[in-house]
């Protein structure tokens, strides 16, 4: 069954079609939830909230853009709203400018799920800025508006996030830098 016919049925509140759509896209949205939220439970709550919004507002979806993109934006907005609601006290950590360098060959060996789970372990302030900027392509100006912070803070949080992620990835058993591989093969 193609997506258009499923969407038509979802618009008519057909529960079976809603279930099909959920089964197809829940793992995608859960991937986003795991990147933004602290815990699996919290990410799952966001997936549920996002799907309820998707099913109730599907009539407002214009066929111009991609449906998956529309759902992802809803999911990201749900996560951001929850983050703002929580108003975590540790949202912003001290600025510490550092150069960040990650070995692309080593990244190649780490699975997608591991990458998401590693991002999930970042402190919340870093994680939100990192997700918005690096993964979801927001600009620092937009991030500053969304999170109600200065552009400078957004930039510094991103640097810190990258550094922390680098440290975390290096602890991964599959992260083997290129130089080490070459040394072992000699």
């Amino acid at each position, binding site marked *: 069954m193609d997506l258009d016919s499923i969407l038509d049925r979802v618009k008519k*509140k057909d*529960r079976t079609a*809603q*279930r099909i759509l*959920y089964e197809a896209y*829940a*793992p*995608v949205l*859960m*991937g986003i939830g*795991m*990147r933004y939220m602290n815990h699996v439970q919290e*990410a*799952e*709550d966001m*997936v*549920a909230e996002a*799907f*309820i919004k998707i*099913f*109730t507002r599907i009539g407002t979806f214009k066929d111009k853009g991609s449906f998956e993109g529309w759902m992802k934006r809803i999911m990201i907005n749900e996560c951001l709203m929850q983050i703002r609601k929580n108003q975590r006290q540790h949202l912003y950590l001290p600025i510490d400018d550092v150069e960040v360098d*990650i*070995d*692309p060959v080593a*990244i*190649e060996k*780490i*699975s*997608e*799920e591991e*990458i*998401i789970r590693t*991002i999930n372990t970042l402190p919340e302030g870093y994680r939100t800025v990192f*997700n918005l900027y*690096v*993964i979801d392509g927001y600009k620092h100006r937009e991030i500053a508006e969304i999170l109600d912070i200065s552009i400078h803070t957004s930039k510094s949080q991103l640097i810190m996030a*990258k550094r922390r*992620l680098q440290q975390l990835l290096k602890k991964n058993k599959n992260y083997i830098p290129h130089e080490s591989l070459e040394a072992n093969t000699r």
Partner: protein
Amino acid sequence: MNPWKQIQDKARNGRITTDKRVWDTIEYQLNTQEQTTYKKALYRSVWIAAAIAIFVSAGIYFILESDPVFQVEPLISEHLPDHDASDQLLYLYSDLDLEFHEKGKLVPNFKKLSQHPLIIQKNL
């Protein structure tokens, strides 16, 4: 290749399975929403029906309570020709004989009445 681009691609393509309870929560909330919508629609229909009933009842009440088609009323003959100002005349008149006074009140059209033999009693 840029390692951050690699991370972006992997993070974007990453899929994580959800627990079964997520769908149960969604289904429960959708059912609750639909029930609420149904109840709201039901209440709205009841309110509309009640409003129509009140409107119709009020209309019927005002029709029943309104003046009869023909009315008997003593009038001062000052507007009529050929009568003394002191004479009182009793007119039988219908709604057709009424006209709007400039102040908005319905009053007998004396000109019209004087042209018809509607006078049933004189010198009350």
